[in-house]
C-alpha cells in the first residue's frame, strides 16, 4: 500500500470519526464550510444559466435551417444546423453597412463625449467658481429628464439647421447627451485622486493644463475607460433619436433601425434576427471583456469609489 493511499484512508477514517463535520466546517481559515460553498455554487450556476439562457437560445435559433424555424423545441443545437442565416444577413442584406454606420457614429460620439466630459470634470473637481454647485445640480437634473421629451425640439432644431437625414445632427446629439453623466462619474473619480500629485508636478514646472494631462488623466484611466464604455453602449443601441434624426434614408440606417426590418414578417425572418443579434453583440462584448477589469475600480458613484 503506497503512502498516498494510506494517507487517504487515514483522512477518510478521520472524517468518519467526525461524522458530517467535514461538510460543515471550513477546511482552511477564511474559507466557507463545504456545504455552504456547494450551496453558493448551486445558486451561482442557476443564476448564470438564467443569464446565459437567452444567448444559448439565440445561437440555436440562428443555426436552424429554414424548414425547422417554427418547430417548438428546446434543443440547443437544432437538427440540420446550418450557417445559412449568418451567410444571408452578412452577404444578402445591408447588415454590414448598418453595422459600419453604427460603429462610425459610436466611435465618433464616444470619443468627442469623453474629451468634453474629461476636461469639464477637471474644472468641476479642482476649481471653485461661481455657479459651480448650480452647474452640478443642472448636470444631475438632466438625468431626470425623460429623453423622449427633448426629441421634438431637437428634431425641429436639426431640421432648421439642415442636419436631419445626415449623421451630423446625430453625432452632436449623442455626444452632448452623454456629457452630464460622464462628468459626474469622472468628477467623482478625480475627487479620489490626491491633489498633491498635481501640485508636485506644478512645482516641477508643469503648467496647470500639463498637470491635468500628464498626471491626473493617466491616473484616471479606469474611470475614462468606463465612461467610454458607457457612452459607447448608449450610442450603439440607441433607437429613438436615430429614428427621428435619420428618418427613412436607407443607406444611413444604424443597426437597430435596420434589424427592425427583419421583424416585419416575424415568422420567416426569425433566424436572420437571431444571427444579426449575435453579430451586433460581438463588438460590444469584446469591448466589455476588455474594459471589464476597470468595471469595478472605475465606477464611482456619489463621490464614493466603488
Amino acid at each position, binding site marked *: 500500500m503506497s503512502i498516498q493511499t494510506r494517507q487517504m484512508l487515514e483522512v477518510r477514517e478521520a472524517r468518519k470519526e467526525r461524522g458530517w463535520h467535514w461538510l460543515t466546517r471550513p477546511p482552511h481559515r477564511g*474559507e*466557507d464550510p463545504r456545504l455552504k460553498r456547494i450551496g*453558493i455554487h448551486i*445558486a451561482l450556476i442557476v*443564476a*448564470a444559466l438564467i*443569464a446565459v*439562457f*437567452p*444567448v444559448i*437560445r439565440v445561437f440555436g*435559433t440562428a443555426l436552424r435551417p429554414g424548414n425547422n424555424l417554427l418547430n417548438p423545441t428546446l434543443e440547443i443545437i437544432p437538427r440540420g444546423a446550418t450557417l445559412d442565416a449568418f451567410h444571408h444577413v*452578412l452577404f444578402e442584406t445591408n447588415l454590414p*453597412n448598418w453595422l*459600419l*454606420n453604427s460603429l*462610425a457614429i459610436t*466611435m*465618433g460620439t464616444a*470619443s*468627442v463625449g469623453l474629451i468634453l466630459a474629461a*476636461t*469639464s470634470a477637471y*474644472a468641476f473637481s479642482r476649481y471653485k467658481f461661481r455657479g459651480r*454647485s448650480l*452647474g*452640478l445640480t443642472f448636470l444631475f437634473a438632466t*438625468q431626470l*429628464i425623460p*429623453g423622449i421629451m*427633448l*426629441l421634438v*425640439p431637437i428634431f425641429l432644431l436639426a431640421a432648421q439647421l439642415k442636419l436631419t437625414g445626415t*449623421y451630423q445632427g446625430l453625432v452632436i446629439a449623442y455626444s*452632448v447627451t452623454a456629457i452630464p453623466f460622464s462628468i459626474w462619474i469622472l468628477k*467623482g473619480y478625480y*475627487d479620489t485622486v490626491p491633489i498633491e500629485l498635481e501640485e508636485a508636478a506644478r512645482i516641477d514646472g508643469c503648467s*496647470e493644463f500639463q498637470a491635468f494631462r500628464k498626471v491626473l488623466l493617466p491616473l484616471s484611466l479606469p474611470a475614462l475607460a468606463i465612461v467610454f464604455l458607457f457612452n459607447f*453602449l448608449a450610442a450603439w*443601441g440607441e*433607437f*429613438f433619436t436615430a429614428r427621428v434624426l435619420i428618418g427613412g434614408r436607407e*443607406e*444611413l440606417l444604424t443597426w*437597430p433601425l435596420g*434589424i427592425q426590418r427583419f421583424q416585419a414578417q416575424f415568422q420567416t425572418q426569425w433566424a436572420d*434576427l437571431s444571427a444579426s*443579434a449575435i453579430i451586433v*453583440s460581438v463588438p*460590444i*462584448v469584446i469591448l*466589455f471583456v476588455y474594459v471589464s477589469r476597470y468595471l*469595478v475600480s472605475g*465606477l464611482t*458613484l*456619489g*463621490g*464614493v*469609489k*466603488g
Partner: protein
Amino acid sequence: MLNLGQAWTAISDVAWTVAVLVIGVAILEAILWLVFVKWRKSALSLPIMLLTPAIIGLLVLYVYPLLWELNVSFTKMGIRNFVDPGFLGLTSDPQIFVGLDNYRDVFTKPVLKQTGFYQLFAQTVIWTVVNVTLHVVLGVALALMMNRRLRGRTVYRALLILPWAIPAFASLQIWRTEFNFQYGAVNQLLGVVGIAPVQWLSDPIWNFAAMILTNVWLGVPFMMVITLGGLQSISQDYYEAAELDGASTAQSFRAITVPLLKPVLVPAILLGTFLTFNNILVPFFINQNELETSDILVTALYRAAFQFSRYGFAAAFAFVIFAILMIFTVFYVRKTNALKGAYE
C-alpha cells in the same frame, strides 16, 4: 453585402462632423485664450476654457429644447395646429395659446385612448418599485456570494455580466420572440415543468410580468458590479477584528457590511430608479400589442408626442413627469444624503 461606397459616405460623414467640431472648439479656445489669459489674466482661465465647449453643447441640446417645450406646453400645437411657434420657437402665437389647459388636461382627460394619468402613474410606480427592488436584492445577493474565496469566480462573473454586455436593443428583440405563445422558449420551459402556456404578449397582467422579467434580467448585473466594487473596498481587517471579538457571521454582516455598503448602494439605487422610471425601450418593445395597461409614463409620453402628435399636450405631460421624478429625488436625497461628497 458590404457596399463600400455607402460605407465610405458614412465614415466620411462622421469624420467630417468630428473635424468640424474640433475646428470649432479650437477657434473657440483661441478666442477664450486671448480674452482670459492674455487680456484679463484671470486666475480661472483654465476652468473657463475647459468648460465652455461643454456648456455651449448643453445650452443648445438641453436648455434650448427645455425652453421650447415649456413654451409649447402652453399651446395646443399638434399635427392639425402646426403653427410656427415664432422666433426659434420661443415666442408664442396667440392663435394657439391655451394657457394652463394642457396641464389641466393631463390630470382630467385620458392621456392615451382610454388610460388616464393616474392609472399610468400607478403602473409606473409598480414597474419602478418591483424592478429596482429585484435588481437590488438579486444584485446584492449575487455579489455577496461572489465576494468569497470561490473556484470559478471569474467565470461566474463573465457569465453573469452578459445581460449587461449584450446591447439591450438586441436582447429585447430576442426576449420578445421568446415570449411568443406557441414557439417561445419561456412557454416551452413552463411546459417542461408541467405549467400551461401563458399569453405573455396579449394578456395585460402577464405582459406586465414579461416586461418586469426582461428588465430584471437586464438590470441585475449593473447592481451586482456596483455592489461587488463596494464589497471589495471594505477592508478585510474589520471582519478579522470582529471575528476575534467573537462576532457571528450575521452580526458582522449587520455591523460591517451593511453600513459600509450603504454609501455605494444609495446613489446606485437612485440611478437605477431614474433608469427604470425613464426606461422606454423595455415597455415599448415587449408590449407590441400596444396594451395600454403595459404603458408607463414615458411610453405614454412617446405615444402622445409621436403617435397622436399632440405636441402641446405632450410637452405639458413631460413637465409633469419630470416634476414627479424631481419631487421623489429631493425627498430621497434629503433622507439618505445620497449626494454627500459630490459638491465638495
